[in-house]
């Protein structure tokens, strides 16, 4: 019965769509920050559908970034590719290598524009994760960087100037020592999967490193002085300076500890800014991620990509929708709603945004850090290669391994994972 009725419904829908030539597309989106975002995204999709008649978008909430990737790949394999997917920006390279997503260059050409012109309004830091092999594969949508959050009340109490947050690793350790008490740690880092890798990228970059080869997906720099220094720094925070909790602390627990006053400082995403702003009872401040060699942070967040196997109409419709989603106005509104920063520069020139920045000076710090932002690591088998380092770092945090051995083992594991790709590319010689 149900089957027959749904068949009938499908038949009706088919005839209806051919009558007014409406193109139906699916849009998959994960919500890595907050459930209210799912509602907001659904509202945006509806707004778009009501605003025009050519394209009908079905907005589909698809769990985490990992599950979104899984669903998008499964749907594509089954012949139902989603036209637009909001995907973790560092999956773009991997998805291009596996042939799951399509180049957006034909769409740019149809619009009579070029990649350079299109990306001109986007912050330079987000370009690298959108381009693969010289072609545009993604439109940056929501972005973040790590940020140092600190409790001003604790600073005062420990005799530190609450308006002068630590700028270097030395100052960070010094402050953390003064802030640590019997029931309180000076600093907390998110150390679960995904977050750990990103934080290690921030620390190794602040130590002068690069983490990965931005131009080639087969190289990571784990067994290097810059990464060793970062890993040793993390180990020392726990075991030498005793200013950080031993063992692996997940991101959710880090923010809970910070809000509860159990940790005086934390490194966390700018994406958490709205949440901290709404929930923190004590006065807090935000600052750049402290440096050892230079100021540098990785970009994080998500971009819009299009999957293979779409009809020409669907491709055009998906591109239209992606452009609408990433318009100056919409990116600004999404940024104010979520706490992510807008990848479009022009979003910050709007009156609403200027008003918002004046009211929320902490968001300004996140924006000021942008000139120091670098690409997010992306390699062949990104997730596995990242986990190779994360597993070793978690062993360090648990006191089971020393930093020098950890970075060596991480490098070995990562090289083994990337070997098939390296043999097909850089080591494939005539």
């Amino acid at each position, binding site marked *: 019965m149900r089957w027959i009725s749904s068949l009938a419904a499908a038949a009706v829908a088919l005839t209806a769509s051919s009558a007014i030539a409406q193109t139906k597309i699916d849009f998959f989106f994960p*919500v890595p920050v907050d459930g209210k975002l799912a509602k907001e995204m659904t509202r945006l999709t509806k707004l778009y559908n009501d605003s025009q008649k050519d394209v009908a978008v079905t907005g589909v909430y698809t769990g985490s970034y990992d*599950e979104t990737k899984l669903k998008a790949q499964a749907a594509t394999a089954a012949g139902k590719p989603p036209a637009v997917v909001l995907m973790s920006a560092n999956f773009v390279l991997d998805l291009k290598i596996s042939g799951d997503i399509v180049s957006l260059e034909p769409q740019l050409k149809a619009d009579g524009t070029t990649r350079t012109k299109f990306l001109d309004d986007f912050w330079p830091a987000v370009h690298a994760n959108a381009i693969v092999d010289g072609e545009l594969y993604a439109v940056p949508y929501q972005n973040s960087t790590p940020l140092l959050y600190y409790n001003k009340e604790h600073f005062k109490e420990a005799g530190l100037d609450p308006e002068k947050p630590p700028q270097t690793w030395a100052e960070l350790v010094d402050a953390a020592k003064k802030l640590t008490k019997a029931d309180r740690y000076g600093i907390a880092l998110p150390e679960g999967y995904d977050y750990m890798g990103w934080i290690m990228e921030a620390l190794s970059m602040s130590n002068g490193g690069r983490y990965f080869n931005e131009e080639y997906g087969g190289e990571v720099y784990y067994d290097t002085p810059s990464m060793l220094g970062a890993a040793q720094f993390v180990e020392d925070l726990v075991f030498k300076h005793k200013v950080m909790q031993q063992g692996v602390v997940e991101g*959710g*627990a880090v923010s809970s500890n910070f809000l509860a006053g159990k940790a005086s400082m934390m490194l966390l995403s700018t994406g958490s800014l709205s949440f901290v702003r709404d929930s923190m009872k004590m006065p807090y401040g935000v600052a750049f991620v402290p440096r050892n060699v230079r100021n540098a942070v990785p970009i994080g967040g998500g971009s819009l990509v299009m999957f293979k196997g779409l009809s020409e109409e669907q491709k055009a419709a998906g591109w239209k929708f992606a452009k609408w989603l990433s318009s100056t106005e919409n990116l600004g509104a999404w940024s104010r709603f979520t706490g992510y920063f807008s990848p479009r520069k022009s979003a910050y020139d709007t009156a609403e945004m200027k008003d918002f920045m004046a009211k929320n000076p902490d968001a300004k710090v996140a924006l000021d850090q942008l000139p120091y932002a670098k690409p997010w690591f992306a390699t062949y088998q990104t997730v596995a290669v990242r986990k190779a380092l994360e597993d070793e770092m978690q062993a360090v945090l648990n006191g089971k391994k020393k930093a020098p051995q950890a970075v060596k083992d991480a490098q070995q594991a990562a090289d083994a994972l990337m070997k098939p790709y390296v043999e097909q590319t850089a080591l494939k010689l005539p």
Partner: protein
Amino acid sequence: MVRKSTVIAGLMLVIVFFWSTPFLWTLVASFRPDNSGGIHMASLLPDFVPTWANFAEAFESGDFAVYYVNTAIVAFGILAIQIVTISLAGYAFARLDFPGRDFIFYVFLLQLMLVPPILIVPNLRTVVDLGLYGSLLGVMLPYFASAFGTFLMRQTFRQIPRDFEEAAFIDGAKWWQVLWHVLLPMAKPGLIAFALVSLMAHWNEFLWPLMVLNEPSKQTLTIGLASFALGTEGGKEWGLLAAGTLLVMFPLLALFAVFQRQFVNSFMFSGLKG
């Protein structure tokens, strides 16, 4: 001198307490007013004036009425069909003689060894080919046959002495009448045990419905819950999470409370008298 039974009862209470901590914590946290993840968040003691705020927020974050209906359709729909298929298949493997019966049965059992995720793409392809992508029927379809259920029913039927059926056959009953009037009533404990396992599994299932369903009006409870539980970059709103989790498990909990006696009996008195 402490009596042995008192000691055992005391030990049992300790174990019960440990086993129920996650649930107790969820219960306490869901009614805790401050959901900022404060210092008391980890406490099991309800040291506050209870509030419905977390539940109100959970309801606001998701369309729970729709999720409940969809989840009920999926979980009970699967069970209804399964009861038919596993009874018939179980009967065939237990009682009918046909060439290759045991071999087919073992091949059937091999399905239990498969890890469900490897079937996602092939199953999804079938669902798309049948035009069921995005429908609740598409979610239910792969579960209409159950290797575990068939195995359970075969074992249950084999434990029933043949005398009962033979008496019925002598009276001129057909095989389906024997199955319906004689075997199924006696297999009730097995069916109830299977129903419990099947309902729990499909009520709580996440990955497969996530793969098949698209439209918000077709989503199930677990996907709705995940939309506000999976945040990684934001902070964890424990109170909201706890309230959402309770909303998801409440119907099953109520069902179990109502039918508790039958469930327990089904496990205890599955033997036959006489």
